[in-house]
């Protein structure tokens, strides 16, 4: 096996802009304004000289990727995933360390870049192909395949500004997908498009991997990571914290990064300003005895509670929870005003401190790790707050149906069904 990517002690430092200055007097303000060009000039001459207003987006990251390997890259927002991809695809330069790359790097994080709305689909295929580094002969050769993949045959000579967003996306993806680089970098593209299209994208990625080419796959979709990659690296605050088989890496990411033992608090700084007047305070999982718990038993009921405050009255507010498995598949969605009676009663909520609580019945969930997402919205009006991975918890199967056999049981739910057996 040859090494196609070797990352050695890689670091990238960004300047986070000028620290906010406090102007005391008008004359100070004027002198600061007048000296601004001079200070700017000094910064150009000595880039990144002072560490005070800089941040390391990536630091001391080292890893290698073998030819034909499909490597997952996971981490929370701001962990350095995008920076890493930007360096690997040569968009930006590292601040320290070095990367050795063998072969052409293509990426699916740039679908549609350089597309011009006034040009037709056909023209954009050629233009975008050239931007992605394809030769014209190569595009000629793959043209029909690209058009077929994008399913926009009838509109190929129509300006893309007349396309629906789905058509636009399919065409853009089709070009990028046919680049056939030695190394393919895939970012969150799968988050866009309809389910059918996402399936197609994943299929294409699988093809690429099977052809023995190297794929770097970045996603928040743990189920896709598990399905498509054997090995993953976990990034946290710019550092590589783990490289392991994907199942282990995903488990690490879901538990270490997110969970705080059955309870999640939101500090004021963590809540986006546009969530107001909604302000999430905490999310908790409680076991049958009412204790906050990271692990609950499948055979006992448990409670999920969302604590929040409203700084102004809201009408039509509903608090929802999304429960999904460690693989990223939704188990269910439920809102606190699903019940018509509660819906009537809480048609509008005055400002104040609230607790919305629901109980999961016993014998509902199968064993495994689950993620709770929180959503606060007024239907048809706006979404105030959303955190798809607010908290994770574990369901222990002790005493659940079928525990006499030690095999793992597929399925999200583990209901206690009433069986009868008759001999006839």
């Amino acid at each position, binding site marked *: 096996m040859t090494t196609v990517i070797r990352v050695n002690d890689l670091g990238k430092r960004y300047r986070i802009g000028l620290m906010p200055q406090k102007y005391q007097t008008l004359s100070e303000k004027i002198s600061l304004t007048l000296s601004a060009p001079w200070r700017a000039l000094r910064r150009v001459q000595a880039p990144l000289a002072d560490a005070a207003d800089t941040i390391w987006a990536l630091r001391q990251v080292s890893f290698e990727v073998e030819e034909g390997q499909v490597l997952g890259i996971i981490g929370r927002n701001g962990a350095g995933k995008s920076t890493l991809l930007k360096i690997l695809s040569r*968009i930006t*330069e*590292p601040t320290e360390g070095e990367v*050795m*790359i063998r072969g052409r790097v293509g990426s699916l994080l740039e679908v549609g870049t350089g597309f011009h709305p006034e040009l037709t689909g056909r*023209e954009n295929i*050629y233009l975008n192909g*050239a931007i992605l580094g394809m*030769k014209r002969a190569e595009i000629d050769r793959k043209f029909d395949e690209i058009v077929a993949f994008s399913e926009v045959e009838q509109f190929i000579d129509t300006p893309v500004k007349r396309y629906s967003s789905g058509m636009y996306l399919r065409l853009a993806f089709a070009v990028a997908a046919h680049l056939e680089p030695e190394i393919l970098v895939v970012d969150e593209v799968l988050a866009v498009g309809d389910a059918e299209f996402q399936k197609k994208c994943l299929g294409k990625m699988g093809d690429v991997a099977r052809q023995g080419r190297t794929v770097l796959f970045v996603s928040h979709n743990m189920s896709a990571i598990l399905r498509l990659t054997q090995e993953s690296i976990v990034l946290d605050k710019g550092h590589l914290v783990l490289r392991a088989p994907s199942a282990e890496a995903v488990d690490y990411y879901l538990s270490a990064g997110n969970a705080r033992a059955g309870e999640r608090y939101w500090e004021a700084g963590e809540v986006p300003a546009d969530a107001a007047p909604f302000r999430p305070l905490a999310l908790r999982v409680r076991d049958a005895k009412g204790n906050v718990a990271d692990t609950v038993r499948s055979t006992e009921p448990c409670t999920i509670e969302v604590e929040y405050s409203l700084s102004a009255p809201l009408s039509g507010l509903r608090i929802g929870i999304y429960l999904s498995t460690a693989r990223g598949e939704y188990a269910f969605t439920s809102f606190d005003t699903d019940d018509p009676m509660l819906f009537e009663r809480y048609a509008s909520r005055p400002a104040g401190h609230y607790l919305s609580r629901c109980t999961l019945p016993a014998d509902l969930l199968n064993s495994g790790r689950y993620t709770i997402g929180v959503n606060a919205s007024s239907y048809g009006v706006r979404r105030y707050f959303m955190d798809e991975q607010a908290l994770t918890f574990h369901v222990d199967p002790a005493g659940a149906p079928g525990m006499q056999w030690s095999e793992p049981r597929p399925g999200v739910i583990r209901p206690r069904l009433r069986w009868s057996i008759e001999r006839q």
Partner: protein
Amino acid sequence: MSQSDFIILRPSRGWASLNLRDLWAYRELLYFMTWRDLKVRYKQTVLGVAWAVLQPFLTMVVFSIFFGNLAKVPSDNIPYPVFAFVGLLPWDLFTKALNDASRSLVSHQNMVTKIYFPRLILPLASVFAGLVDFLIASLVLVGIMVYYIWQGQMRFTWSLSLLTLPFFLLLALITALGAALWLSALYVQYRDVGHILPFLAEFWRVLSPVVYSATLVPAKWQLLYAINPMAGVLNGFRWAILGTPTGPNAPMLISVGVAIFLLLSGLFYFRRMEKIFADMI
């Protein structure tokens, strides 16, 4: 794939090399970007490509009325409209190239922040796209000249000096590209450049013999005047096409020298700043 076929990415220090080989590898992209600029420029316009003709033509009419007829600016014994149009041809090419190329990086931000390609492609494509307008407007010049010759107001003699036109055209492009390399790289960091550009174009035009003849400039100032490469370009154009007494001379060498210096220094500055484009833009 051969063992040697790999690249190393590491922080570059100081003045980066020009890396023209990379530019050559991406020559098709240069072609497509130029082609796109042309294709898109006159989409959804009523007059379409006629704009390439109308702009210099109307400017010429206005200049002829105010500078030719009213102010009676001397035009080396050439009918003023012809004199002005021959100057406007390279001048419009120059300002358009300078303006578009200087803005090219910022106006293609999403390409710069998402894909690797030699960034030089962007200003280069903007400069080349202006050439087509130039060629179309040149046809109009032929028409105007035929009219004045037919009216008996001027004479035209074929001469070998016409063959020097491509050289002066190249000089205009080099000047535009050289200045635009500096300005586009500065624009990434300082949006002030966007405000400077229109002013710079006006200022530069006054310093160039567009509406007047360079022969108006006193002899003792000619050397200083020639520091502006566009003076050399405009003098050259008028000399090559109209036979004015502004042909190649010692000051013109200064113009050429300044243009080449502008281009080389611009290239190196651009390459030096290239690494921060994606982070700063």
